[in-house]
């Protein structure tokens, strides 16, 4: 058996990503959400898995992307695609600026203080957006209609999110091979030692958060347009759904591995869709239970489990 390399898997995924929308048009929305989940898990894992900073507040950047796109598309008076591009760009700038600002303030804090602090950040954003009339307050914002023919909208956003997910994956794959990737791991393994060896840990951490913020805000602008409506608490700054899912998917797949977040996103998304189909009314209860079960009984994740199995087998063979 020839060894499976990353490129084989990526090839299969690329074919699936490009082909499935045509083969199974009924699944196109699910597929778009799947790519969104992949972006969520990948960007969360950069901090949570690689750097050891478990953030509950990454949803902040997604929400900033949503709202920036919605406001620009409402107020700029440009044609649809120009406004969308401008909105995505503005969202990215704002999200990176927010990551710089809050990162400088929060990323020095460690452990559970950081986790709860970022949780507070995400919820503050949701509550501010829910009270702020300029962005529609509690009733949210509707996005402009897609100008193309019926059905084109889904294709457009599915492929856009797919493209963002691919770029994000390839970028992170490259990044983890560089000195910067090693620095992230060094911070996770022993921050004081990393400091003592002369790594400038704070700028590295802030920069990593900025990268996550960039991809999240772009995906936020696209997702807002795909959904067509943003609610401050349930879509844009949805801490209790998207915000927790990104953590869960990365853990389910395996924290700190390249394929773990992707795998976790796929497995989680399929599970969740099954819940929605077969447990209607109880799906959110089931999700809460799923979180507890995964975290308590399966914290090493799928990739971690495979590694354990392999280690055990090779140990037995030798």
């Amino acid at each position, binding site marked *: 058996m020839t060894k499976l390399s990353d490129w084989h898997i990526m090839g299969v995924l690329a074919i699936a990503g490009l082909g499935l929308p045509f083969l199974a048009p009924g699944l196109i929305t699910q597929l778009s959400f799947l790519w969104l989940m992949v972006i969520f898990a990948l960007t969360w894992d950069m901090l949570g898995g690689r750097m050891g900073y*478990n953030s*509950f507040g990454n949803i902040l950047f997604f929400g900033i992307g949503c709202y920036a796109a919605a406001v620009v598309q409402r107020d700029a008076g440009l044609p649809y695609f120009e406004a969308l591009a401008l909105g995505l760009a503005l969202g990215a700038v704002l999200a990176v600026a927010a990551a710089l600002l809050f990162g400088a*303030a*929060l990323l*020095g*804090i*460690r*452990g*559970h*203080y950081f*986790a*709860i*602090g970022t*949780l*507070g*950040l995400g*919820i*503050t954003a949701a*509550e*501010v957006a*829910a*009270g702020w009339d300029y962005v529609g*307050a*509690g009733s949210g914002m509707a996005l402009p209609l897609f100008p193309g023919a019926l059905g084109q909208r889904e294709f457009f956003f599915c492929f856009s999110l797919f493209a963002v997910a691919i770029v994000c994956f390839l970028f992170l794959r490259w990044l983890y091979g560089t000195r910067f990737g090693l620095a992230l791991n060094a911070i996770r393994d022993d921050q004081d030692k990393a400091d003592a060896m002369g790594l400038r840990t704070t700028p590295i951490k802030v920069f990593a958060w900025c990268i996550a913020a960039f991809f999240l805000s772009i995906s936020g602008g696209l997702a807002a347009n795909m959904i067509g409506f943003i609610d401050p608490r349930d879509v844009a700054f949805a801490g*209790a759904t998207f915000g*927790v899912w990104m*953590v*869960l998917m990365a*853990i389910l797949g395996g924290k700190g591995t390249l394929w773990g977040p992707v795998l976790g996103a796929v497995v989680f998304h399929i599970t969740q869709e099954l819940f929605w189909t077969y447990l209607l*009314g*109880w799906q*959110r*209860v089931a*999700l*809460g*239970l*799923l*979180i*507890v079960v995964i*975290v*308590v*009984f399966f*914290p090493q994740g799928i990739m971690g489990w495979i590694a354990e199995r392999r280690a055990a087998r090779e140990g037995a063979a030798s």
Partner: protein
Amino acid sequence: MLDNLLLFVQFPPLAVDVVVNGLLIGAIFALAAYGMALVWGVLNIVNVVQGELVVLGGYVTFLLVQWGMPPLIGVPVSALVMFGVGWVLYRAIVFRVVDRDIFISILATFGLAILIQQLANLSFGADVRSVDAGLGPLHFLDGMVTVAWVKLIAFVLALVAGASLWFFLRHARLGQAIRATAQNPRAARILGIDTGRVYAATYALNAALCGAAGSLAVMAWTIHPYMGLPYTVRSFMVVVVAGVGNVGAVVAAGLGLGALENVAGFVLGTEFQIAFVFALMVTILVWRHLRAARRREHLK
């Protein structure tokens, strides 16, 4: 916003009213915060499900009143019921995460919080609930300052609960066992303390405190299924400010938070009150961190 601030200056009794009511509500925060400090200090976990325990306690009282019981009976009954709930939660889930990485315990209790929220939503509906304690208001300063009787009772009960907790930890056998386990679990085990039981009792005691807080909250204020997280964050904030082992400081910080929050809710508008709570927590963390960083330390 400035108008509201000016109102305070032009009409000082209003400021007194807002601050006094805030202080009284703060007693409920202090009650939930004792529990969090206890669990944090003994089990070394941050119990994110704290707020949901408060909300559940509120629903217990709500149900009792629906069945025709007098509301104030709800305080001990809620505490008792939640003691049982806490014991079950500990034996079912929480004991599995006690010795693990602190992030695992945060995420696991967060999952529990979502689970309980959703169950509460399914069983009681998403409506805002409240119970009329039927005690009426009290007027001071020629009726310019109004305080509900039930808030005053809540305040006194919270202080009594704090004092008895302090006494219990000092003098009762179980209280001493709890403190011994907090100091050094291994040594406590060698000396014959069943630390598993102590942990379960601590967690259940915390749930009982939350239950009492929730019962008071439903009478003095309102509850609904998604109101848990603000209580968790308030408790967390109070413990961060007051420290884990200091009951007096927890009371002071809880009361201060209540007053501050009520003033902020009045000045900024109630729609921003929750935003203020969470933003304040982030601010406190950053401030504590900066102070520690100056001494080349970090928050532990």
